[in-house]
């Protein structure tokens, strides 16, 4: 029994469609053309307590729509889901009390007030007992190191400081399930790292289940053992990070440094030439051919150095989305 169970979840939006120009605008006032957009198309998932799962996919893939259905904001068009034993979109307060949602591009803090005031309101709204609230607040302030900015108007905080306060406020009621939608959006690299460290720590200490969406690969590779790749509303891959490249991109990257300049050697017969600059050549080769190609290269050429690597995860993902191809687990 998973903590989050999803069966064939679908969400279809009706989108009004019109062409550009004044004439089309006038026509659309009277005759609206609608188009069905399948934002989420038969998604099934089973997530256990304490798991950190990363949803990966390009913009508009259906990641956020899925999160919105799981948090209870949206009703699905079809399908079922239970989270913590509740049907999310009934929005029972017993359910809402145990979850939280952070949206990287939207703020739930009052910008005219110091963050501390928003924290107090949050604790009251969630009816958190005084001592528990105090303890949660102290812990989060410490972990996020935001002690110095609590009394400053949120409006005057830097984006990174504000994001830390957003995360703090959303965790004050100690949720068991946490939905993080692009939590590192727009942050610089150092701040992204600190947010990731915090999320990892928080998951370890509290055992909270976390679903995270991002289009920064680093977020996902750093935090999530399990990856769900979504595109066009469908799951292309669901499994351990390590299997992702094996399943979706069964390639190896072979890089060689040559001792001398070589002209006329047909590298393209060995595999796809990714780069060829002077004496450095990088090839992409099917996984099963990697050993043969390498020994062939070593036999044919005077090689100074050779490395064989898995392709970078970014490339794997980019390739998958570019080809629109995927395998169901």
């Amino acid at each position: 029994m998973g903590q989050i169970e999803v069966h064939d979840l679908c969400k279809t939006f009706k989108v009004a469609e019109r062409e550009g120009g004044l004439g089309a605008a006038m026509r659309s006032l009277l005759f609206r053309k609608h188009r069905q957009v399948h934002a989420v198309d038969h998604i099934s998932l089973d997530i256990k307590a304490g798991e950190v799962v990363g949803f990966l996919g390009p913009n508009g893939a259906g990641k956020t729509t899925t999160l919105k259905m799981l948090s209870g904001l949206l009703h699905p068009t079809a399908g079922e889901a239970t989270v913590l034993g509740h049907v999310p979109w009934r929005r029972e307060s017993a359910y809402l009390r145990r979850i939280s949602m952070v949206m990287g591009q939207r703020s739930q803090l009052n910008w005219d007030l110091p963050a501390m005031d928003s924290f107090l309101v949050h604790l009251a709204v969630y009816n958190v007992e005084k001592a528990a609230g105090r303890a949660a607040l102290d812990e989060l302030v410490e972990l996020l190191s935001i002690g110095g900015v609590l009394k400053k108007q949120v409006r005057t905080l830097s984006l990174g400081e504000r994001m830390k306060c957003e995360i703090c406020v959303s965790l004050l009621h100690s949720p068991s399930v946490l939905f993080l939608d692009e939590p590192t959006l727009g942050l610089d690299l150092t701040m992204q790292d600190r947010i990731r460290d915090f999320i990892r720590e928080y998951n370890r200490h509290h055992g909270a289940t976390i679903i995270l969406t991002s289009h920064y690969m680093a977020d996902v590779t750093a935090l999530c053992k399990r990856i769900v790749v979504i595109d066009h509303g469908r799951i292309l891959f669901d499994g351990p990070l390590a299997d992702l490249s094996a399943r979706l991109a069964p390639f190896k990257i072979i890089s060689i440094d040559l001792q001398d300049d070589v002209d006329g050697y047909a590298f393209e017969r060995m595999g796809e030439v990714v780069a060829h600059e002077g004496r450095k050549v990088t090839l992409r080769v099917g996984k099963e051919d990697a050993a043969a190609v390498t020994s062939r290269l070593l036999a044919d050429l005077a090689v100074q150095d050779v490395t064989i690597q898995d392709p970078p995860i970014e490339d794997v993902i980019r390739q998958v989305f570019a080809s629109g191809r995927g395998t169901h687990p």
Partner: protein
Amino acid sequence: MLRHLRLIWLFTRVSIQDTAAYRTDFFAHVLVTIFNGGAELVGLWTIFSNTRSLNGWNAFQMVALLGVFRTMNGIIGMVIAPNMRLIMDDIREGKLDFIILKPINAQFYASFRRVIVWRLADIALGLGLVAVACVKLSASLTADKLLMFLVMLSAGSVIIYSFWLVLATLAFWLTRVNNMEMVFWNVFEAGRYPVDIYRPTVRLGLTYVVPLAFITTFPAAALVGKAQASGVALAVLFAAAALAAGSSFWRYGLRHYSGASA
């Protein structure tokens, strides 16, 4: 219930700190309020130097009406309008999600989270005018009239809240509804005169479409002895119906927002 009152008190306290940051605004607003009140009194004085009664309302009865108008203006400006404006903004910016995900009634939270404290100046001025009128009319003022006045004032507040809730809820379908607020305030200006001075069709509109009569004329009428017990009962019924209608329209809007009705 107690928890909700405590929350309202917390929202108010936080809002006071919020508005305290804008002290000059506060003083400017108090000045504007005093100026407005003065101008209205001068207007009344001009009318009553030409006539002894305006459709049956004498000078101090009109002062009472003016007091009610100011008080209501303050109530709307202090709690109702700022929260409804916030709802419209949140819907447009997609921030209503955070309200919906709170484990308390979304309508309650969305209706009380902001209080513009300095609008208390309007309420103070309004109640001051009502008090002056009461002293001048003390010969005929009785406890039951005062009670009827308070009930009417409460009913009026509920009715105007429901009216605004419907306006705010329209934002689920129409992305720009802020212009309607301007229309409201312009119509609301008519509330400083008793609705009986307007032509029957206008009067009907000001009673049941934009329910101004319930908000200003009727409470003042109760105070000065122009209302029947049946009128009070009607106002209470109308308030209950308006609140029920407004709340169900809000819930319908929420269902539409989350795609449950589609």
